[in-house]
C-alpha cells in the first residue's frame, strides 16, 4: 500500500514542533541556506563558467521542479526567463494567496513551519539576485501573516536576512503583504497590481510577462509557497537525488488537499505520480473511502477550476513501453497516477493539488450551481465575456437548481462557457468555463432531466410557487 512521503511536511505535525526559529534550527533549519551560499562556481565541459547563483538556478532546472500553484510550469525554466540585462531590480513574490477552492496546503506550511518558506525564499532570492521580495498572503489568514512577520524578524535577528547575510555581502529584505479577500489576487499579474496598491486587475500577456515587466514594471518571479519550499530541499539533496522522488517529468513530492465526500478529508504529501487517484480516495492511509453505503459519482481533481472527472471514465494515456516506444493504454479513472501529466492526459489538470470528491447522493446541478456562484462573485470585471458570462452562468444554474429550469439550459450554459474561454485577459476565464463545460457534457442527462421536470411542472399549473432564493450575487 502506498504511503505518504513527507518532505515538506516532515516536521509540521510532529508533537512539540513549533513555528519559532529555535525549533527550526534544532531540526537542521537554515543549513540549506548556508550550503547554497557556499556553492562553488562550476566549469562546464564546454569551458563555460557558471557563477554560484547560476549553479543553483541550473540545479533547480535539473531537479525537474514544477510549480505547485496551479499551472505546473517548470520553476527552473521560469527563472531562466527573467530579464537580467535590463539593469532594473529583480523582484520575487511568494504567492501565498491560497484561494483556489479545495486547496489548503500552503496554510499548513505557513502556520506550522513558516521558516521553511522563509529559507526557501532566501535561497531563491539569492540565486536570482533579488534584493527585495514580498510574501503576498490572503487577507483571511491574519494569524498566518503575523507568524510570517515573526519568522522574518527572527531570521533578521540571526542575520539570515537583512544586510550582509552571514557575512557574504548579500543584502535581502522580505516583507509580508496582505490581500483583502479577492480570489483574483492569486493570478500572478492580478497579484502584482494588488501589490502595487491597485485593484487586482490582471494584466494582458504579452507584453506583461512578470519575468520581464512585473512589479513596478521590473522583472519579477512569482512562485507558490510550496514551490519555494522545494527549492530548499533541492539544495539539501542535490538535484539528482531530488529527481529520484516522484516520477519522470513529475518529480518530487506534493501536498494533496482532499475534501468532500470521503471518510477522512485532509492533506497528504505524496511522491508525485506514485499514488493513484483511487488510492488517495479509498486507501486507509489517505481518504479512507466514501461514506458507508455510498458510491463514487465525480471527482474534481485539481481545484475547482479543473475539469470534473466522472466515475467509470477510462482514459487513453501515453505510456512508454519497455522498448522505449510510446503507446496508448487504457487507464481507468481510479488508476490515474496523481501527477501533472496523467491528469493532463485525462483532459483535466492536477492544478493546485486539490481533490474534491462527490458521492452518488449529490446532484451535479447543485454542485455546479455552487461553483458558478464562486466565479460570478470573483470575476474582476475587466473582460466582458468573463464578467457577464460568469454571471449569466450562475443565474442560469441558480434557476435550474431552484425549480425554474428549461430543457435547453444545457445548450445555453455550454454556449456561454464556450464564448468565455480564450477570449479573456487572464486564465480566470477558463477557470470559470471549464467546470461548466465538463459538468454539462459529462452529466448531460442530469441537467436535461432537471430542466424537463421543471418545464413539465410549470405547464401542469401556472400557480405553482417558485422557491427562488435571493439572487446568488450581490453584484
Amino acid at each position: 500500500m502506498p504511503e505518504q512521503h513527507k518532505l515538506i511536511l516532515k516536521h509540521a505535525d510532529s508533537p512539540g514542533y513549533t513555528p519559532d526559529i529555535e525549533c527550526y534550527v534544532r531540526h537542521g533549519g537554515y543549513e540549506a541556506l548556508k550550503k547554497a551560499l557556499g556553492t562553488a562556481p562550476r566549469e562546464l565541459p564546454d569551458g563555460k563558467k557558471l557563477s554560484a547563483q547560476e549553479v543553483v538556478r541550473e540545479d533547480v532546472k535539473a531537479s525537474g521542479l514544477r510549480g505547485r500553484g496551479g499551472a505546473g510550469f517548470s520553476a527552473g525554466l521560469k527563472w531562466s526567463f527573467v530579464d537580467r540585462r535590463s539593469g532594473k531590480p529583480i523582484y520575487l513574490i511568494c504567492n501565498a494567496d491560497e484561494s483556489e477552492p479545495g486547496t489548503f496546503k500552503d496554510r499548513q506550511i505557513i502556520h506550522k513551519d513558516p521558516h521553511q518558506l522563509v529559507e526557501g525564499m532566501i535561497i531563491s532570492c539569492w540565486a536570482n539576485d533579488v534584493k527585495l521580495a514580498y510574501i503576498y498572503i490572503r487577507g483571511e489568514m491574519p494569524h498566518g501573516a503575523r507568524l510570517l512577520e515573526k519568522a522574518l524578524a527572527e531570521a533578521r535577528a540571526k542575520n539570515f536576512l537583512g544586510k550582509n547575510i552571514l557575512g557574504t555581502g548579500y543584502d535581502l529584505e522580505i516583507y509580508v503583504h496582505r490581500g483583502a479577500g479577492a480570489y483574483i489576487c492569486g493570478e500572478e499579474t492580478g497579484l502584482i497590481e494588488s501589490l502595487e496598491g491597485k485593484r487586482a486587475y490582471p494584466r494582458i500577456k504579452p507584453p506583461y510577462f512578470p519575468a520581464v515587466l512585473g512589479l513596478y514594471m521590473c522583472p519579477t518571479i512569482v512562485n507558490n509557497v510550496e514551490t519555494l519550499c522545494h527549492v530548499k530541499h533541492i539544495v539539501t539533496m542535490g538535484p539528482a537525488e531530488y529527481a529520484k522522488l516522484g516520477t519522470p517529468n513529475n518529480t518530487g513530492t506534493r501536498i494533496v488537499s482532499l475534501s468532500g465526500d470521503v471518510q477522512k478529508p485532509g492533506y497528504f504529501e505524496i511522491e508525485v505520480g506514485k499514488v493513484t487517484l483511487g488510492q488517495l480516495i479509498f486507501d486507509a492511509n489517505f481518504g479512507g473511502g466514501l461514506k458507508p453505503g455510498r458510491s463514487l459519482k465525480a471527482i474534481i481533481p485539481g481545484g475547482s477550476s479543473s475539469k470534473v472527472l466522472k466515475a467509470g471514465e477510462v482514459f487513453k494515456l501515453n505510456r512508454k513501453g519497455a522498448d522505449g516506444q510510446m503507446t496508448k493504454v487504457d487507464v481507468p479513472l481510479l488508476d490515474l497516477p496523481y501527477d501533472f501529466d496523467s491528469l493532463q492526459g485525462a483532459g483535466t489538470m492536477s492544478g493546485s493539488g486539490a481533490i474534491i470528491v462527490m458521492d452518488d447522493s449529490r446532484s451535479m446541478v447543485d454542485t455546479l450551481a455552487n461553483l458558478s456562484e464562486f466565479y460570478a462573485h470573483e470575476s474582476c470585471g475587466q473582460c466582458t465575456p468573463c464578467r457577464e458570462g460568469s454571471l449569466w452562468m450562475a443565474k442560469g444554474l441558480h434557476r435550474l437548481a431552484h425549480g425554474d429550469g428549461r430543457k435547453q439550459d444545457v445548450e445555453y450554459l455550454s454556449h456561454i462557457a464556450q464564448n468565455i474561454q480564450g477570449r479573456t485577459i487572464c486564465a480566470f476565464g477558463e477557470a470559470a468555463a471549464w467546470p461548466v463545460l465538463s459538468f454539462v457534457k459529462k452529466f448531460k442527462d442530469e441537467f436535461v432531466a432537471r430542466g424537463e421536470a421543471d418545464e413539465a411542472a410549470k405547464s401542469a399549473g401556472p400557480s405553482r410557487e417558485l422557491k427562488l432564493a435571493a439572487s446568488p450575487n450581490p453584484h
Partner: protein
Amino acid sequence: MTFSVPSSLEAQLDELATHYPVKRSASLMFLHALQEHFGHITDEAIEWTARKLGLQPINVLELVTFYPMFRREKLGRTHVKVCRTLSCALAGSGELREHFCKKLGLDPHAHAPQTTPDGKFTVEFVECLADCGNAPVVLLNDDLLPKVSTAQADEIIAKGKGL
C-alpha cells in the same frame, strides 16, 4: 466624532510605507490597519490614507469597493463568516448559515453581510477559506473554526450576546 489616528498607529504605518519603493503599494496594509482600529473604513480614513500616500481619495475608495474585506459600514462585534464554497456546502455550510441567521433574526436568504440591530453580530457568506478538509468552516473575527456544528453556532451566539 473627529477623526484622529493615534500617533503610535501613525508611526507604525509610516514604517510600513518604507517597505515599498512606491508608497502607493502600502494602501492595502494601511486600510487593514485603519479598519482594525476604527472597525470600518470611513470617508475620513480614505482621505487620510490618500494624503499619507500621495494619492487621490478615489485611488483609495476604488480599493475599498473592490476588495471584499473592506467595509464602509460598522460591523458587529462578533463577525461570523461562513464559508459558502463547495466543500463546505457539501458539509452543510448552507444550513449552518441559515441557522445563524434564524437564531439572530436575520434574513436567511440574503447573501450579503447583515448586522443585527443591536450591533452585536454580523453574519455573511464568504468564499473558500482554504481549510476545506475541516468543512464546514467559519472565520470568527480572526479565528478559523473547523467543523462547526449548529450546537457550536449556538455557543458562539450565546457568547456574542454577552459581549
